[in-house]
């Protein structure tokens, strides 16, 4: 019990004292996950729209693949990305393995199906009649798509937050492709693993607090926006 208490006290001391390493790790986490998320949203929402609104051969298979991707275990993603980036792999020449870029790629692979899948589902739930009404209002293809995104804005935000939650808290993929190298590729989750392993519980707890704040913060923002959407509706 004492070890836990001492750990917490020390953790708060580190956080409030502005421990440089903790802040560096936090910033790296935010940068890796944030960039992966940004790319996932920019690419994933239009892709979700394409799958939701277009009829094409293999559409069912594509949807099934996306849904499977949403549930892909991070370690499996890490393994796949590592295989592609390893020196003898298809993308080995770019020498990305054990860099933050490799981590961004791995987290992108995790986040992308979530963003595509959730925006696809939200778009499909829009009534066909509304889509038709939007066209009848004189919307061009892009205008119509943007107007539909506006209609599903709460669901879109949920998909962004869900993806953020998934990438900020995953440990398997980033450790496999980033190597969890202290000062270079170590992010919050990897650092917690390492600090716990070597018995520096206070630092591990401090890092865990930061991670929890980020994860809860994201969910809090999401909940607030959803509730506001409900109140206004």
């Amino acid at each position, binding site marked *: 019990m004492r070890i836990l208490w001492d750990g917490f006290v020390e953790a708060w001391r580190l956080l409030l004292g502005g421990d440089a390493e903790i802040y560096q790790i936090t910033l790296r986490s935010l940068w890796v996950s944030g960039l992966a998320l940004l790319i996932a949203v920019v690419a994933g929402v239009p892709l979700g729209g394409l799958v939701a609104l277009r009829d094409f051969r293999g559409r069912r298979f594509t949807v099934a693949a996306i849904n499977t991707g949403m549930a892909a275990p991070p370690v499996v993603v890490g393994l796949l990305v590592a295989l592609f980036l390893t020196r003898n792999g298809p993308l080995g020449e770019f020498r990305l393995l054990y860099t933050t870029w490799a981590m961004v790629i791995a987290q992108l692979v995790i986040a992308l199906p979530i963003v595509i899948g959730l925006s696809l589902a939200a778009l499909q739930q829009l009534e066909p*009649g509304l889509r038709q009404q939007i*066209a*009848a*209002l004189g919307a061009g293809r892009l205008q119509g798509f943007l*107007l539909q995104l*506006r209609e599903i804005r709460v669901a879109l935000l949920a998909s962004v937050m869900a993806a953020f939650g998934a990438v900020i808290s995953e440990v398997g993929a980033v450790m496999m492709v980033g190597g969890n190298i202290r000062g270079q590729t170590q992010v919050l989750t990897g650092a917690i693993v390492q600090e716990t392993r070597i018995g520096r519980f206070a630092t591990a707890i401090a890092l865990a607090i930061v991670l929890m704040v980020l994860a809860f913060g994201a969910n809090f923002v999401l909940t607030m926006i959803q509730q506001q959407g409900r109140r*206004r509706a």
Partner: protein
Amino acid sequence: MTNAASRPDDGSAPASAATGALQPGRHGAAAAPVLEARGLQVVRGGRVLAAADDLTLHAGRVHVLLGANGAGKSTLLKALDGLETARGELRFEGRAVATAAARLALRRRTAAVFQRAYLLNTTVLGNVESGLRLRGVPRAAARERAGAALGLLGITHLRERKPARLSGGEAQRVSIARALAVDPAVLFLDEPLASLDPPTRRSLTDDLLGIFAETAMAVVWVTHDRDEALAVGDAVSFIEEGRIVQSGAALDVFAHPVSTSFATFLGLDTYLEGVVTNFGDAVTRLALTGGAVLVCGEAPDGPAVACLPPEDVVLFTAPPAEHSASLRNLLPGKVKGVRPAGRLLIVTVAADGLEVAALVTRAAFDDLGLTVGGAVLAAFKASAVHPIPRHERRPA
């Protein structure tokens, strides 16, 4: 214009009739063609879902697409509005609408209201502005025009309200205001009243007809309701299995259905046109265009059409003494024709410049000793005549 219905001979009527350019409507003004469809077909999976061989919409006219549910009316409406791809020729203001870009251009000159008001998740004002904004109208101008449209529909007080807090009738008014705000050349209304309660339906119909009377837009009004068609339509096209079976001036089409299925759809009612007048003696009268004056059910003064169900018409060979108090309308005439309707008979009576259909039992027919050409009295209560107000439209 004929003001009384005559039934088609069973099966002998031609399966299709002229569906071409409408004759000048009841106001006589020649209106400009806005949208023309020639050999237009919506084909899906090898099946023709809707077709218009020859259909012309004119400025300032309400063209009703009438038919049973699933007849293809809505599909045809969508094809005419460029919402469905279709084979054949569609011309808007003389220009062919053949490409996706041309269909978009068409939709930007038209507006559509559907049975359900599909409103965007923004304020009422935001909704009414949306069509204008999508068409590139600057925000300030869009806001002004949207405000005017809200005023036209009497819903200015709802401008900041969200769609979830609107009643069905209010939502449909917003949808209509949104359509009118863009000042469309053609307004498409797909069963706009179908999901509303009767009082809301009546008030909205009155408002719409008032608005139409003040504008020169062409209106396409899809409905399965014959009374609605009669009340709003300058022209009516009857649609069956995706095809226009009959098209023409509303009263003409109703009075002379060319197919038995259309006649069945219309019911066996006699359709009358005239002007309702209340003289202050608690009696409402309908002066028919043919000259006869009938005592009818309550209705506001003004032009109206009326249905007279044949089961409400009683035939006599001599004036009925004891019934005369309630049978306010007593028309002397001659039996023009007799035909079976199931176990009953439809007797057509030519009386006082109009034709009235009466449904009688075979026994009654024999008892009265009726013969074609023989004298007869057609009698019916005032309440049997239901006038439906029609708004006169300003000649376009």
